[in-house]
């Protein structure tokens, strides 16, 4: 009996081991008969053998994955591209370098302004208020400034929300509030952009003549704008070199941002990047010129963000020097009046022009007292 029991157990274990080994081998070879024939590669999209569904669409789907375009009869032609894989690159650049470098650059500019304020303090009127004022900006100039400035502030806040709100605001105000805020912010952004564009056109028309380069600019640059050290006031006409730089950055940067913004709102009508790249290729850049609508939109979005972030940084400095940074400057864009001593220290050549023209017209030396 002992012998039978031992033999039965041995056969049982052996049989089980053979079954497991067979199962493993069939799984590996894919053949019940343990056929070890060499596997054949697919040819022409057909899987070799007699398997069901032997046509492979891998090449087809690979092309779809890489942005192959089909045709559609619906108005939204973008639907012809099922997977637009340049979107991966766009997303990586938007959420990577643009957001990260932009965020650090804004923070660095604010820290630089704070450091400058700590070092220099508020730039005072060295000779004090005279009590006499002179009209710095006319009604139209101030109107233009605030049309552009107020629309820019809304655009900047709603735009920054699109880029950083998910990380900064959403954890504080919650998802639902953030979603509503972002939706209405985006709508406001699209529509108030037109006010900004009109403001830019007006601003260019009103101020371009005073923002052309002049000899005094070199003196201003050599004196570092008089920012370092009291009683250091390089001569300037209506606008000094620093103000001219702000003007041209607003006109060119804001204008460029506006064009890319319009391209985002009207993606089929305004496609600036193909032509821009073709122009740049004259200088050997080798950029792609045959861009799909979606690629145009992606380039527009990235350029819109870059120019807007740069402009925001410039405007940080502009707001600082016009308010906290310099005594007596804010009145220029609120009431239009600035103190005569302020004008003499910061824009002496302009004041001299104003005084001479005032004397020539009505014989009065000053326009009106301050209070």
């Amino acid at each position: 009996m002992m012998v039978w029991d031992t033999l039965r157990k041995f056969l049982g274990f052996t049989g089980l081991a053979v079954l497991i080994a067979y199962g493993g081998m069939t799984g590996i070879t894919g053949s019940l008969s343990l056929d070890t024939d060499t596997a054949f590669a697919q040819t022409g999209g057909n899987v070799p053998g007699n398997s069901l569904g032997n046509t492979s669409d891998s090449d087809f789907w690979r092309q779809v994955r890489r942005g192959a375009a089909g045709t559609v009869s619906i108005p939204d032609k973008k639907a012809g591209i099922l997977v637009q894989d340049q979107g991966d690159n766009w997303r990586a650049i938007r959420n990577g370098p643009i957001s990260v470098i932009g965020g650090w650059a804004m923070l660095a500019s604010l820290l630089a302004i704070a450091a400058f304020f700590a070092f220099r303090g508020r730039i005072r009127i060295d000779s004090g208020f005279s009590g006499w004022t002179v009209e710095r900006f006319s009604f139209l100039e101030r109107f233009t400034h605030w049309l552009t400035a107020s629309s820019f502030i809304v655009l900047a806040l709603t735009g920054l929300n699109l880029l950083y709100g998910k990380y900064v605001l959403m954890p504080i105000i919650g998802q639902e509030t953030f979603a509503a805020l972002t939706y209405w912010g985006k709508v406001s952004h699209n529509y108030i952009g037109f006010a900004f564009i009109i403001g830019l056109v007006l601003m260019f028309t009103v101020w371009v003549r005073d923002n052309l380069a002049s000899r005094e600019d070199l003196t201003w640059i050599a004196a570092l704008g008089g920012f370092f050290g009291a009683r250091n006031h390089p001569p300037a006409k209506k606008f000094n070199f620093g103000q001219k730089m702000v003007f041209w950055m607003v006109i060119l940067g804001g204008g460029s941002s506006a064009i890319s913004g319009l391209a985002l709102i009207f993606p089929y009508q305004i496609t600036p990047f193909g032509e821009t790249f073709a122009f740049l290729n004259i200088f050997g850049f080798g950029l792609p010129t045959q861009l799909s609508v979606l690629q145009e939109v992606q380039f527009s979005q990235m350029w819109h963000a870059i120019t807007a972030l740069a402009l925001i940084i410039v405007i940080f400095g502009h707001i600082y020097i016009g308010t906290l940074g310099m005594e007596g400057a804010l009145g220029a864009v609120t009431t239009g009046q600035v103190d005569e001593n302020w004008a003499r220290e910061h824009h002496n050549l302009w004041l001299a022009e104003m005084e001479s023209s005032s004397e020539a017209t009505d014989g009065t030396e000053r326009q009106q007292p301050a209070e």
Partner: protein
Amino acid sequence: MKAMWLGMLTAVVIAIGAGLVLGVFDATTGQVFSSQSTRL
């Protein structure tokens, strides 16, 4: 200060006007310009 407030008010009026124009444009053409930019 009037110029400042008028400038801000004009910005709002232009924005509302742009919204109306684009809204009418969307409604008459069947296109949705103002939402296309979200479809990257």
